[in-house]
């Protein structure tokens, strides 16, 4: 009788475990979402205004500066719209397909590092109900942040580009000029650069758009050291400093395909 109960209990535990492995991550994220979202709301609506009230004069000056910057940006936006329209017209004329279609959706960062404090994970406060899909690119104006690895209705889990499992197809840009080389960024390094290539210090690494996961032209980082031969001695590799300050992230943008 005892053996039978033991077997049934073991099967029950295994069943629960299997179900949890299948749907547990989404469920857990949804269960803690109200608490984390509440904490995020409290921080932004209560703590931040209190802090702001204490630094009002500085905020007034900053507000003036931002208003000026806003006017400049609106001018630039008007120019960009005109360029976009011209670009679309030329594309149609040349019958080119668009490299990337979609829009960027803002999402708050709920937590960093997950429960185990492993630094290359973020949880965001937008999920499948906002049209976010697994695999979507995540970025901020400074550069590429990572890729959505899991989605629940109200949350999305993001693996940062510092995670060695994340690979990004990139190209090297020099002083805003023409593209110097194609490469792969992974775990803070660029790999598979041509052996004879000489790159300037702090060369800019941007997404190439190949693979159609990350839209083209997003800054990944800057070359931190001179490139050197890799183990095979057939190609070069180099260390890259990411463009984004990951611990300071409060809001990010998730790419939503049309």
């Amino acid at each position: 009788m005892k053996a039978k109960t033991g077997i049934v209990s073991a099967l029950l535990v295994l069943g629960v475990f299997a179900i949890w492995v299948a749907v547990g991550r989404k469920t857990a994220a949804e269960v803690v979402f109200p608490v984390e979202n509440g904490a995020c709301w409290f921080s932004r609506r209560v703590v931040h205004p209190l802090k702001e009230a204490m630094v009002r004069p500085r905020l007034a000056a900053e507000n003036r500066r931002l208003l000026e910057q806003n006017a400049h940006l609106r001018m630039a936006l008007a120019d960009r719209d005109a360029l976009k329209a011209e670009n679309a017209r030329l594309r149609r004329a040349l019958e080119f397909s668009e490299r990337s279609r979609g829009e960027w959706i803002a999402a708050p960062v709920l937590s960093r590092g997950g429960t185990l404090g492993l630094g290359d994970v973020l949880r965001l406060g937008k999920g499948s109900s906002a049209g976010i899909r697994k695999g979507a690119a995540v970025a901020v104006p400074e550069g590429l942040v990572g890729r959505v690895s899991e989605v629940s209705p109200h949350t999305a889990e993001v693996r940062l580009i510092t995670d060695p499992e994340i690979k990004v197809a990139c190209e090297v840009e020099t002083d805003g000029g023409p593209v110097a080389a194609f490469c792969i960024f992974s775990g803070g390094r660029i790999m598979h650069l041509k052996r004879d290539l000489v790159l300037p210090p702090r060369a800019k690494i941007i997404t190439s758009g190949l693979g159609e996961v990350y839209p083209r032209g997003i800054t990944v980082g800057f070359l931190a050291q001179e490139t050197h031969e890799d183990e095979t001695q057939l190609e070069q590799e180099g260390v890259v400093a990411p463009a984004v300050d990951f611990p300071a992230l409060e809001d990010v943008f998730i790419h939503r395909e049309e």
Partner: protein
Amino acid sequence: MKSKAVQIAALVLGLVAAASMQDLSPAAMGVKPPLVAIVVLFVALRMPTPFSLATAFVAGLFVDALSGRPTFCATSLMPLLALGVRLYREIPGERSIAAVGAVAASLGAVLGEAWIAVFGFATGDAGLFVRMCAATCIAAPIGAMLFALLPHLAKCIGLEDE
């Protein structure tokens, strides 16, 4: 004595709150306060072994699900912690509840860091030794504080000593 359903509901709420707080906490040297592990240790000290093991297993699943890593690291660690703390309780001698909490939480946190390293998960810039030291420094005061506080909460829901 409250009904079992109320106790289990309170325990689940406690675990959810602890997991949320742990997830939201900033990491120091890549280490977060092990709030869920402390709740598991507390339950293991007060409740019968099957109940504490089940709680530890569920808590482990929850922590793994929120860690962004494949399930099994915390799921295997938490029941070990629950069993370990029961052995620690068998050691004779007078100890205050806060001291028990500080020691159990520190040892649990150090074992947790070693466990993460065994599973080969990326541990950021800090090495294993630094993470273990940081884990002890963070877990000891929080463990002592929570172990002093939790008995009062446990009394409210009728979670008496076994």
